[in-house]
């Protein structure tokens, strides 16, 4: 994939999906889903140069 905007969009979609997983209510998986969400969020953050900083 070469289009950076596509990657941003995919990551945003993955973040939304990971946030849904976090609400699964399974205590064994809750921390792992939070970890997944955080890794995606970190990728969004480190790619955010030049973008508007969220509050």
């Amino acid at each position, binding site marked *: 994939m070469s289009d950076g905007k596509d990657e941003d969009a995919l990551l945003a979609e993955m973040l939304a999906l990971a946030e849904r997983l976090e609400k699964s*209510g*399974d*205590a*064994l*998986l*809750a*921390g*792992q889903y*939070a*970890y997944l969400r955080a890794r995606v969020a970190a990728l969004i953050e480190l790619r955010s140069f030049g973008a508007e900083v969220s509050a």
Partner: protein
Amino acid sequence: MASPPVADPFAASPLLRRFGEMTREALEAHQLRKVQALCARLHAKSDFYRAKMDEGGLKGGAVDSLDRFVKAFPTSAKADFLADQQVAPPFGTRLGVDRGDVVHISMTSGTSGQGQEIYGRTQRDVHMLGYLHALPWFMAGLRQGDTAINCVPAGGMTTGGWGPGEAIRIVGATGFHVGGNTSTEAKIDLMLKLGGIHFIYASTNYLHTLTEALLARGISPREAFPGMHGLFIAAEGYPLEWAAKIEEHWGCRLQEGYGSTQLNGFGGSTGSAGVFRANGERGLIRLFEWEHLIEIVDPETGAPVLPGELGEMVVTNLSVEGSPAVRFRTGDAARFVPWQECGGAAWNAIECGTIGRFDDMMKIRGNNIWPSMFDAAVFAHAEVGEYKGRVYTRDGKTEVEVKIAVADHQSGLSAEARETLVQSVRAAIKERSNMWVDVCEVPRAEFQGFAYKARRWTDERQDGYRL
């Protein structure tokens, strides 16, 4: 025992409940699917395992039943892996992925003296490494928001160096990795400052050392750490009398796991049940058979042992991508308890607290003796802080010497009580091993450096053969 129950992990996790409710038939069907995928992948990628499968007649890596798998797939042992690494360093030809997919390594500790196995791990393997530590700890009561003390040295190149950190993180707890560079006194100082600790992971021997040091400072663990809901040990056996004392001192359940580098973490644990069964007998390490295929076999014939018998653990991790261990002979000795005798769930078990090593066995005066027999006899005495044993030759006869040290918090024992203790230890050893041995008391200071993984025995008999 008297310790409070752990919050039901099956109620908190639908995934775990699924594992707990599956029938034996469904469990074995799941294992077969994973074995088939593993063999197909390794036949395509691994020269080492392709040769094994060809040797066993598993054409193209095809496996049609678990029975066929365990009968046809030849076992491997440490020496095979070391030889393979010599041929194709560093990972050998058993690697199941492209070299570029290896992002982490696990090495065995090298305490056997034979050499260190090197295992390549992929990104997925690293997550599974964490999960295979998190799983038993979750069952033992570790939860998001808890404070956990990891007394095993962190980092480095071992499975035990990385698994705990990954596990505590993916459970969502906060880990204080105090093992290695921090003295016991400094650990206690830190623990007292934290304002609440919920979980401790330590080797059996280190939990003993930590408890002894707390008591020597006049600190009651259960009063100092009232929020503690899990003590989790691994690596060494122990007598039940010791376990009962530990639970009494800490006011919570003691749990145990069986794990190894070959399993990429834990292969089973006492779950939430603790190290005692309801009738007060030794508890069970229930095996995580949806993640591993664990056989317990006669080390001479390779045939499965009968219920209640001692056998060698032969392990296959079903999910590792990088350096899988397929039908690996661990040399670990465990007593087999079939799932039908475990009181729920279709997972087989081994007896907890008694896992030993077949290669630790000492032939003394015609008796087969394991260090765990002596551990049980000596540590049944709460006054004993540590011991070490020596087998040697004197005037052509094999002799056994056991040196015991009184625990720091028992330093007020009178000379008479100390002599009674020595005689009681001697009698307990005779009862368990059928041998009379020499027992004497030495200062506790002789045991510095014993804290993490005790190597209590030395065999000096060959020295007696020198001319």
